[in-house]
């Protein structure tokens, strides 16, 4: 039997490390069935972490969820006695299991299935076959043509044709070229790339090697954010293993193709996810975007032709080479081929990583895979694309997920952040949150972004405080359009999107803040007061116990009361109340 603990960052955060240690101790003390305790990356079901998968001797997978340290004893006992029925109370429900069964996993194909620290496990799933295939029988153009056939677009946000970029970089007349991976995943709420690196680092290494061969680069660099220490560790191991097996190095598979690979840890600036700023940062300069054109394919790292894709894009590449571009293109829509990974978060029942073929609707992802809104509350909107994206309202839930259709809503596909909001989320506050992020992360180079985002933020600050003025919305719109047009890079050009979509779909909500000094969602602290509905309160005292300022008092089994002078409007009471007895006005 094999006991596999999900040890992505999400699993570890939920306590997988303690479960692992305990199991190690128990199995070192007694292991009659000769069971193996090992790890895997995140399988995407973050909402069930820590997860322990047990493969029985027949190779069948049994999945157990929300495992606590104390459960290790039961697991040990069940494994030792070869009776997994002892663990039935921990077994994943059929409903939760459907989270995975409704997905099509290409980029995430190995995540949660193999040990990311073991190249053998990667090879066992067909790893490095694609690399061998191209080096033994495909020209650079053949590779690019295959990628072209697949229709793969860059998964980092802009959605630019991968084959087009590769072709441009290949065509650039220079002996020295670079292939770069953008692993500076910075959108709040996005963790697709982290999961891939932590769960299947060799897929990235192999994908990059294929790309490097295609464009003619002999050095590959992964720019990964320093906030991903586990990803860096696993990637370092993968590079080491691949070098040892001579998948990396000189004359790979006996061909003329040689390539080295290294990691560069970023220093935490969001804008370094913008490809030209990333290049500046790689060169040791302040992370500020360069003017395009020239594009990196002509003049990139050290002004040499360079190709930059993100992690998910590269992770798809070995699969496409192995299975053929047509197989990839068979999935998705006319406009958008293949699959896309989303990080489903927010007020959702089943949050985690979801990979689906393009063309599914938002409703399918949120309701069928994600299980709908937590607490069965009313769905309000979903935020796509993080600070560069926008919110899509309930009326557009049946929007198909592809680059073009999402773009028409005012949101963007982005890198895959998908934050679900219910009626208690203030959309003005949401726009303010993202703008606060971009204003802080603006590199300060161009005027429109440096000062424009600041001014927009100031107006939104005013509005959420109930100090908005007539004409603020119009001024914001005007400023947003000017910033979109005038900003230097993608960060500034897309920074107004959250504001514009809020104005487009939730104008009334914004107007209520300005004209009536009212927050309809009951979230803007300066505009609300908390009270308890005496008819609904059963006097359970839960809210009083969760109140950080002891503002809630009362007798058990009779309605409680909130002292508004002590109340800091943190919202804890509202969150914990099971009877909807907390009123926010």
């Amino acid at each position, binding site marked *: 039997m094999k006991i596999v603990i999900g040890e992505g960052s999400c699993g570890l955060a939920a306590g997988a490390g303690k479960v692992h240690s305990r199991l190690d101790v128990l199995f070192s003390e007694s292991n009659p069935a000769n069971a193996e305790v090992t790890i895997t990356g995140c399988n995407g079901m973050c909402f069930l972490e820590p997860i322990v998968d047990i493969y029985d001797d027949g190779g069948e997978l049994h999945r157990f969820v929300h495992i606590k340290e104390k459960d290790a004893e039961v697991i040990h006992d069940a494994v030792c006695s070869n009776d997994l029925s002892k663990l039935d109370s921990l077994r994943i429900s059929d409903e939760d299991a459907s989270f995975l069964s409704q997905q099509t996993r290409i980029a995430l194909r190995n995540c949660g299935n193999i040990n990311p620290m073991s190249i053998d496990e990667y090879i066992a799933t067909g790893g490095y076959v694609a690399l061998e295939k191209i080096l033994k029988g495909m020209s650079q153009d053949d590779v690019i043509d295959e990628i072209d056939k697949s229709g793969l677009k860059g998964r980092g946000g802009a959605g630019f044709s991968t084959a087009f970029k590769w072709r441009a970089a290949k065509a650039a007349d220079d002996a020295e070229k670079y292939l770069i991976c953008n692993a500076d995943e910075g959108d709040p709420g996005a963790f697709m790339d982290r999961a891939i690196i932590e769960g299947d680092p060799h897929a990235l290494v192999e994908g990059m090697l294929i790309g490097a061969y295609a464009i003619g680069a002999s050095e590959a660099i992964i720019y990964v954010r320093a906030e991903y220490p586990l990803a860096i560790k696993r990637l370092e191991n993968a590079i080491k293993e691949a070098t040892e097996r001579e998948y990396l190095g000189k004359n790979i598979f006996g061909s003329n193709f040689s390539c080295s690979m290294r990691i560069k840890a970023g220093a935490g600036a969001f804008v370094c996810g913008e490809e030209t700023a990333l290049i500046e940062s790689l060169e040791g300069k302040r992370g500020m975007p360069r003017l395009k054109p020239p594009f990196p394919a002509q003049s990139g790292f050290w002004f040499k032709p360079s190709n930059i894709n993100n992690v998910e894009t590269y992770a798809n590449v070995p699969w496409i080479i192995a299975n053929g571009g047509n197989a990839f293109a068979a999935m998705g829509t006319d406009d958008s081929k293949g699959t896309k990974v989303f990080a489903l978060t927010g007020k959702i029942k089943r949050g985690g990583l979801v990979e689906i073929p393009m063309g599914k609707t938002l409703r399918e992802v949120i309701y069928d895979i994600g299980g709908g809104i937590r607490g069965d509350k009313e769905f309000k909107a979903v935020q796509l694309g993080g600070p560069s994206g926008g919110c899509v309202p309930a009326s557009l839930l049946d929007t198909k997920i592809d680059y073009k259709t999402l773009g028409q809503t005012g949101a963007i596909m982005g890198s895959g952040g998908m934050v679900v909001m219910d009626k208690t989320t203030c959309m003005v506050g949401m726009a303010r949150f993202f703008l606060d992020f971009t204003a802080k992360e603006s590199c300060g180079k161009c*005027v429109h972004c440096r000062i424009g985002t600041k001014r927009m933020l100031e107006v939104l600050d005013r509005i959420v405080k109930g100090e908005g003025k007539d004409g603020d919305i119009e001024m914001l719109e005007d400023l947003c359009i000017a910033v979109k047009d005038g900003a230097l890079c993608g960060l500034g050009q897309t920074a107004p999107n959250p504001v514009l979509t809020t104005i487009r779909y939730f104008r009334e909500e914004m107007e209520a803040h300005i004209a009536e000094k009212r927050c309809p969602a009951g979230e803007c602290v300066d505009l609300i007061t908390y009270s308890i509905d005496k008819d609904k309160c059963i006097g359970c005292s839960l809210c009083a116990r969760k109140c950080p300022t002891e503002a809630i008092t009362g007798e058990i089994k009779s309605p409680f009361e909130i002292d508004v002078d002590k109340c800091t409007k943190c919202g804890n009471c509202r969150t914990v109340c099971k009877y909807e007895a907390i009123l926010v006005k």
Partner: protein
Amino acid sequence: MAIKYTIDGIEVIAEQGETILSSATRAGVEIPTLCFSDKTAIYGACGVCVVEAEGVPKLLRACSAIPQDGYVVRTDTERVLRARKTAFELLLSDHTGDCRGPCKLKCPAGTDCQKYVNEIKDGKYYDAVATIYDVFPLPASIGRVCPHPCEDACRRELVEEPISIAFLKAFAADKVLASDNKYKITTGADSGKRVAIIGGGPAGLTAAVKLREYGHAVTIFDQQPKMGGMLRYGIPQYRLPKEILDAEIAIIEEAGVVMKNNVKLGKDIQFNEIVKTYDAVLVAIGAWTSVPMSVPGEDLDGVLGGIYFLEKLGHGERPVVGEKVAVCGGGNTAMDACRTAVRLGAKEVYVVYRRTRNEMPAADIEIEEAEEEGVIFKFLTNPIEIYGENGKVTGMKLQKMELGEPDESGRRSPVAIPGATEDIKVDNVFMAIGQVANCEGVEGVELTRKGTILCDEMTFRTNIPNVFAAGDVTNWGAGIAIEAIEEAIKAAFCINNFLEGDEVRYKATYFVEREVTPEEFEDREKQHREKMPGPTPEERIKSFMPVYDGFTEEQARAEASRCLECGCHDYYDCKLIKYANWFDVEPARFGGSKRERPLLEIADVIEHNADKCVLCGLCYRTCEQVEGKTFIGLYNRGFETVINPMFPRIEAAAYCATCGKCVDVCPTGAMRKKF
């Protein structure tokens, strides 16, 4: 192979690889830039060079975009203008400084006081006078009589006292008048257009000069024997010697202004005739009618409007006054009347004013000097009756007043104390409570309810298409001379536009201004203002001799050296302010916070003011790419980004060559050489 494309309809030929900016500039299309320099790599930060090319979804930065054959590029689309204007507005919303000093901004005519004061400091008196003439003529006269709002605004007051700007003006003008190299007005090429100006006071004379500068033929009609208007007939000789005024009017006459005196409208010449004969007419007849007090006894012998009293002196008369004279009112005319009465031999001269000294509209110095000359101020009194015997005035009944609530003007209103009155014996009463216009003879021109000429505030046009008005006669009524001059300058601008067939409207220039606090000036060494030499009060009252001798040269230069030079040193070269006015910016619409940062000293010789910095990066890029140094660079992120030494702990000398190139390339006044 050359690339052919059009920009704003103009055909442009670009070299292979040449940018839109470079090729368009060559073709004469101006594209604004702040961060561009041909000596450094393209940067693309400012975003003010954006243009739109048909079929290209995004706006292009002209500094980097390479045109393609057949491109149709526009710089005047709504998108382009919005993006550019917004960039300037955003920059200005975070820009703290004084484009111009408060002296210039508060001068109604917008005289560049800081400039001429500093020219005087440097001994360049002719340049100083030219600086004044750039705005208006008559500097020696106005320098003597102006209540100088510039000095009220002068920040030197926060150190000790404001600069004596007006006296310095008179000093420089006197100096040049007395020299062989008198100031000569440069007139424009003959336009073939003729303008008539009715009224030869400060407004009429100023407009005449401006219109001559535009190249129009100008004739001034005036009912008085000589030109000068109120400067001649309202201001006593002891304040403005008429020889000075004559000399300055002569300069105007030399500029080709035809001056016709003793011409009374409606009698000697008909207004309609003038309107028909001339291409444009400016009515600048002033406000010459004294406002009556409407109290019993006003018609008694010995009671006269203050302005009429002064006018008599202007005509060379020496009216006889009795021993006791009362002047009613608290303005400058009242001061002129009471001090004139003293000089004519009156023993007791009262100023009857219904409020207190604090509320007096007259200039402080006038009040002080009147007091020195023995004038008795009866504050909080209001005449309610003038007594007389045999038709001649003998006394006045005064109502005692107290101050009540502030009125619309912010001054506390006087309120009668019931039953409290006082009688005084007087031989003459001069009423100086205000002057109004008399538009008799100005036929067909629509008037306001006050009897002034109704004219548009931005075009100075009346209801008759080619008739304009300026000065005391317009809407708001009488004010100070420099305000009449202000209107004349604007009206002349509008008349010129009208004659050239352009949009007539006057457009105010946008400036960046800032607030200051006294703390900012705490470290300044005190250097008190120069005392104006002149006769003692006892000597003064014996005749109409000038009350001031004028500054000596030494004094003038010392006084001028006190100037704090508030206005930005880079105003004339600043691209930001140039474009701000080009794009009619309204940065106030954003409101929002501004960065406030201390001045950065670079190697003790260069000063960087982050509050004026637009972060174009030219300074540090020039340092790096042209000089090969890395002394300065960007620090912080987002809105907080500033220029900073790259290695603050290392001695500047190790990195900075003090070449000053960073200052030279700065498009605003953020960089300054201290050497």
